[in-house]
C-alpha cells in the first residue's frame, strides 16, 4: 500500500512543476509589457526600466523562474499592482472564502445527491426515480450563472428572506474579527454565538446551493446506477433472504459496495467546484479565489493571476491524489493487489 502511495506522490511532482511553469509563464504571456503588468498603468518608462532591473526581468527566463519559485516557496507571491498589497495577504482572505463555499456546495451535493440516488434505486420506475433522472439531466444542463441570477432575484430581491452577496452582515455586528478566515468555524468555535452562525450560514446558503447544482446532479446519477447494480448482487439477495432489515441492507451492504464510485464522483467534482466557483463567485459577489482570478484578468494584474492559477490547479492535483490514496484505505481489494 505504501509503495502505491509513494508512486502516486512521485507522479504528482512533475505535474506540480509543470503547473508552476505555466503559472510563471503567464506573466510573459499576458498581452502587453510584463513590467506594466507588474507595476500598473501609471508607471513611467523610467519606473519600468528601474523595475525591470530590480525585479530581474532582464535575466534569462530560467533564472526568473527560479527566483519566482523560491519566492513562492517562502510565501512571497509578489504584490498586486491594483491593490498594492502583498498577494499572500489577499490570498489569506480569499482562499478560506472559496473553500468554505466549495465545502458547503459539496455537503449539499452529497447529501441531496446521494439520498435522491438511493431513493431512485430502491424504487425503480417510481416517481422518485423519475425525479432523480430529470434532476440529474437538468442539473448538468444548467447554466449556473443564470440559475444564480434567478434564485438571487427571487430569495433576496423579491422575497427578502436571504441576504445579497457577501459573507456576513458586517453592519449588524460590532467586534467581529475573522480568526481562521473560515467564518462558519469562527462563529461556532470561536465566538460560540448562534445568531452569528445563522447570519454566516444564511449568506453561505444560496451561493453554495447554486454551486452544488452540477455535482449534485452527477452524484445523484452515479449513486442511482451503482446502487441499482449493487442491489442486484447475489449477496444482497442472500442478506434479504436471511431476513435482514431493508434499511440495514441498503446502508450496510449495498451502499458500502457502491461507495467507491460515489466517493470518486464526489472528490473529482470537488475539483470541478474550483472551476465553477469562478462563475458563482461573480454572481454572488463572493470574495473568493475564482473572482480574484477574474478581477486580475480584467486589470491585467500578473501576480494575483499567477498565484490564483497556481493555487487552483495544484489543489486540483492534490485532490485527485488524495482520492487515489484514499482508495487504498477504503477498498481492501486494492490493498491486496498491491501486496501480491
Amino acid at each position, binding site marked *: 500500500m505504501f509503495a502505491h502511495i509513494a508512486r502516486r506522490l512521485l507522479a504528482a511532482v512533475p505535474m506540480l512543476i509543470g*503547473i508552476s511553469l505555466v503559472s510563471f509563464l*503567464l506573466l510573459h504571456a*499576458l498581452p502587453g509589457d510584463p513590467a506594466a503588468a507588474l507595476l500598473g498603468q501609471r508607471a513611467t518608462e523610467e519606473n519600468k526600466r528601474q523595475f525591470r532591473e530590480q525585479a530581474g526581468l532582464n535575466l534569462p527566463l530560467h533564472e526568473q523562474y527560479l527566483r519566482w519559485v523560491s519566492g513562492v516557496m517562502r510565501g512571497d507571491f509578489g504584490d498586486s499592482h491594483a491593490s498594492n498589497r502583498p498577494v499572500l495577504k489577499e490570498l489569506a482572505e480569499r482562499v478560506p472564502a472559496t473553500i468554505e463555499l466549495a465545502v458547503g456546495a459539496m455537503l449539499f451535493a452529497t447529501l441531496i445527491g446521494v439520498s435522491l440516488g438511493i431513493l431512485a434505486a430502491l424504487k425503480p420506475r417510481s416517481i422518485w426515480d423519475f425525479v432523480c433522472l430529470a434532476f440529474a*439531466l437538468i442539473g448538468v444542463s444548467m*447554466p449556473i450563472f443564470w440559475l444564480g441570477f*434567478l434564485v438571487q432575484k427571487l430569495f433576496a430581491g423579491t422575497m427578502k428572506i436571504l441576504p445579497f452577496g457577501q459573507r456576513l452582515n458586517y453592519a449588524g455586528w460590532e467586534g467581529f474579527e475573522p480568526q481562521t478566515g473560515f467564518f462558519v468555524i469562527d462563529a461556532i468555535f470561536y465566538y460560540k454565538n448562534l445568531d452569528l452562525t445563522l447570519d454566516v450560514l444564511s449568506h453561505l446558503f444560496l451561493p453554495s446551493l447554486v454551486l452544488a447544482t452540477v455535482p449534485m446532479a452527477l452524484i445523484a446519477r452515479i449513486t442511482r446506477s451503482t446502487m441499482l447494480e449493487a442491489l442486484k448482487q447475489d449477496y444482497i439477495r442472500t442478506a434479504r433472504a436471511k431476513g435482514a432489515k431493508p434499511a440495514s441492507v441498503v446502508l450496510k451492504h449495498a451502499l458500502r459496495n457502491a461507495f467507491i464510485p460515489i466517493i470518486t464522483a464526489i472528490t473529482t467534482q470537488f475539483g470541478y467546484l474550483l*472551476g465553477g466557483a469562478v462563475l458563482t463567485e*461573480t454572481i454572488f459577489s463572493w470574495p473568493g479565489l475564482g473572482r480574484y482570478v477574474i478581477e486580475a484578468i480584467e486589470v491585467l494584474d500578473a501576480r494575483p*493571476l499567477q498565484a490564483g*492559477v497556481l493555487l487552483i490547479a495544484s489543489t486540483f492535483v492534490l485532490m485527485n491524489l488524495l482520492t487515489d490514496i484514499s482508495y487504498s484505505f477504503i477498498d481492501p481489494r486494492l490493498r491486496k493487489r498491491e501486496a501480491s
Partner: protein
Amino acid sequence: MKEFTIFFATGARDFWRFVLTHRPAQGGLAIIGLMMLAAVFANVLAPYGAMEAFRDQLHSPASSDHWLGTDSQGRDLYSRLIFGARYTLSIALAATLLSLVAGSVVGALAGYFGRWVDLVLMRLVDFMMSFPSFLLAVVTVAVLGKSLENLIWAVGIAGAPSFARQVRAEVLRLRSLEFVEAAHSLGYSHGRILARHIIPNCLTPIIVLGTLGMGGSILSVAGLAFLGLGGDVFVPEWGLMLKLGWDQSSKGAFQVGVSGACILVTVLGFNLFGDGLRDWLDPRSRSR
C-alpha cells in the same frame, strides 16, 4: 457485434430503430432539430435583423411588433434569439470539432503507437487535465485576448483531453483485435490501418462524446461570455445576450431570463440525445 458493422450504413438504421423506442432521445432530437432549423433559416424566421436598432423603442415590452420586446438599443429580442441559435450553435460546434479532432489525433497516435509516443502524449493530456477545464479556458482567453474566435480556441483546447483519453482507450482495445493484427500481417502501412480499420471503428464513441460535448461547449462559451471574455458584446450569442441583459439592471431581467432559458433547453437537448446514444452503444445500460 455492432462495433464491426460499418457505422454509416447499418449503424444508422439500427440507431434509428432504437430512437423510435427511446423517449428521451426523441425529445433531445426534437430540441436539436428545432434549434438547427432556427439557426439555418434565421433570415426567414426572424422578423428583423439581429443588429437592426429601433432607437425610438428602447427597452419596450412585448408587443405585436416585437414579440419579446426590445433591448437597450431597441433591437428586437425575438429576432436576436433566433439569430442567437445560429451563432451559439456554430460557435459551440466549432469548439467541439476542435476538441474532437485534436483529441482524437492525440488519442489515436498514443493508443496506436504506444511506448514513448503514448507516454509523452498522455503526460501532456494528464497535465492539461490537472487544470479545471473552465479555468484553463479562462486563462487561455486571458492570454490570447478577448474575442469570440479566441473563445472557440480556448473552449476547444480545454475540451480536447477528454476526447484524447476516450479515443486512446478505444484504440488500445481495437489494436489487439484479430482483424487489426491480420492487417498488420498483410503488411499494410500504419497510416492505412489507422485510417481504414481503427478510426472508423472509433467513430461511434467519438460521436457520442461529441454530442455530449456540444452541451458542455455551449455552457462554457456562454459562461466565458458572461464573464466578459467574449469581446464584441453585440454579437447575438446567447451568453453575450445574457451578459448584456445583466448589465441593464432593472430593465434587463427579462432578457437574462429568456437567453438563459434558451441555453438551458438547447444543452438539455444535446444531453438527452447524447444519453440516448450512449444507451444504444452500451446494451448493459439499455436493459435497465
